[in-house]
């Protein structure tokens, strides 16, 4: 059974039709590359899955049950995590503080509930080890490389039992070595059974880790096929409109 099923999703902002009748299925342990030009509707679709927007029309089903969300926190409660393009990190805080931001561990000391620093450092270090990242929990974000920052943002999603992970341009603006680190992280999470949506402009990254590619153009789905049955040229043609659609 698909972990998430989007059926005929449309989203209108006044007269603008950002998405029209888009249907996509996400399977466990599968990476779906979501591609399209600027304004194609990728961000709108991801924001609908992440609970930021409600669709104008269409339904979402999670493991067979209808899913209606009003706020991003509800998506998180359903096991949908998102890593934003700018990573949403605070440079002045440590890696562990960023991982737990908004979900801090606390312990009781007398009448007070205080932050459980040692617990958070321990758990964050554990997650970084699981992600095979050299990121140190006590190190401030401002001293970290792009790859380590990505690891911190992805580590956040490991606090809960995430079923779906939405990655928005995770390899933009980082070095080639760090790109390899991030792609390895994606493979690792896929192998753990998480359904991953990878939004990227970098064709080589999508072809390196994705199992399927979905292409949007002007708010419509124009391709949804296995990555092994597609090619750079075909996807480029679909994005630009040189190829009408291959569904």
């Amino acid at each position, binding site marked *: 059974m698909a972990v998430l099923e989007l059926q005929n999703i449309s989203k209108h902002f006044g007269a603008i039709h950002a998405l029209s009748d888009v249907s996509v299925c996400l399977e466990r342990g599968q990476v779906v590359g979501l591609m399209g030009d600027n304004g194609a509707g990728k961000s709108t679709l991801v924001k609908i899955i992440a609970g930021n927007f409600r669709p104008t029309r269409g339904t979402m089903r999670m493991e067979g049950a209808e899913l209606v969300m009003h706020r991003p926190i509800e998506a998180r409660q359903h096991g949908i995590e998102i890593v934003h393009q700018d990573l949403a990190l605070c440079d002045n805080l440590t890696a562990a503080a960023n991982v737990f931001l908004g979900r801090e561990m606390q312990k009781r000391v007398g009448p007070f509930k205080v932050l459980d620093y040692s617990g958070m450092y321990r758990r964050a270090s554990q997650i970084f080890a699981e992600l095979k990242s050299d990121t140190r929990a006590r190190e401030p974000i401002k*001293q970290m490389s792009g790859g380590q920052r990505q690891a911190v943002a992805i580590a956040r999603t490991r606090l809960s039992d995430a079923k779906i992970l939405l990655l928005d341009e995770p390899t933009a603006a980082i070095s080639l070595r760090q790109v390899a680190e991030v792609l390895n992280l994606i493979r690792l999470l896929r192998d753990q059974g998480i359904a991953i949506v990878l939004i990227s402009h970098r064709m080589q990254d999508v072809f390196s880790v994705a199992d399927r590619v979905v292409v949007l153009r002007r708010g419509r789905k124009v391709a949804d096929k296995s990555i092994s049955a597609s090619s750079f040229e075909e996807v480029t043609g679909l994005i630009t409109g040189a190829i009408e659609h291959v569904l």
Partner: protein
Amino acid sequence: MASVVEDQVKRKQADWVGWLTASQAFWVFIAVCAASAFLSFATDSFATSNNLFNVTRNFTFVAVIALGMTIVIITGGIDLSVGSVLCLCSMVLAVVMHAGYGIEVGIAASLGCALIIGAFNGVLIAYLGIPSFVVTLGMLSIARSLAMVVSNNTVVFQFGPDHDKLLLLGGGAWLFGIANPVAYMLILALITGFVLRWTRFGRYVFAIGGNEQAAILTGVPVRRIKVAVYMISALSAGIAGIIQTGWLGAVTTNLGAGMELQVIAATVIGGANLAGGFGTAFGALIGSALIEVIRNSLGLLGINAFWQGAFIGTFIIVAVTFDRIRALRQAD
């Protein structure tokens, strides 16, 4: 095995030394100690119990407000209204007590007034997105004007049946002979330090100053925290106003005029970053202490008091310059 343990101990010590020497408050503390040592040798009157009593008591009012201002500045905001809020809260206390009400009613009215002003500032800043500079600049004018309205621009120096209690509150020394204002300041500094270091609220304050958008995306209740922060700032001004009224024994409508600049100077000298994300309660105290030591030393060394602003201004620029150099080095 022994060498592994030794390595770990050495690394921990290096971490600790690195953390200490990277702290601006530490260097300001050294500056305060050095200035005090110099003045002890250069003058006969600095190291006397009377002078030290005056120095410690004088900087408490600025320090108490600087604690609240530190929290505001950590979030990346500013509160220019604190001097006027101090005046209004002092005047509310004075007028209520002068009208025959007890000290409890006076303090409740004064602190209630501070909280309302803080909430007003906070709501405009957090929910309407008006820059804190603009809102609190407006409040600076409004609060002082209201202080004139409630007192009819007169000096209030009689505080009704609890007159003596109020003077004792600000002028007494209940805790091991420590002047009450100093004791209040130390208690408030401990509470502020605890809140900033050990609570979720403190963590969110730093997160908002570090990256407000990130804080929103991760589910931090940014607006509520910001409102609370401005309420705390106004409350600290209200508390300082009550203590100062008890100490002075009179309230005039120019009380606290220009104090916001001293408070911001103390906070910045103590290591708070006006861009947000950094600051400590200890820094607020030590920054306030440095300003008072400068002020005191000018008098003792026979230097014209008009130089005070130049010295404090220089310290602000030096402190921010060091902070900038440190940030650039870390970026390298």
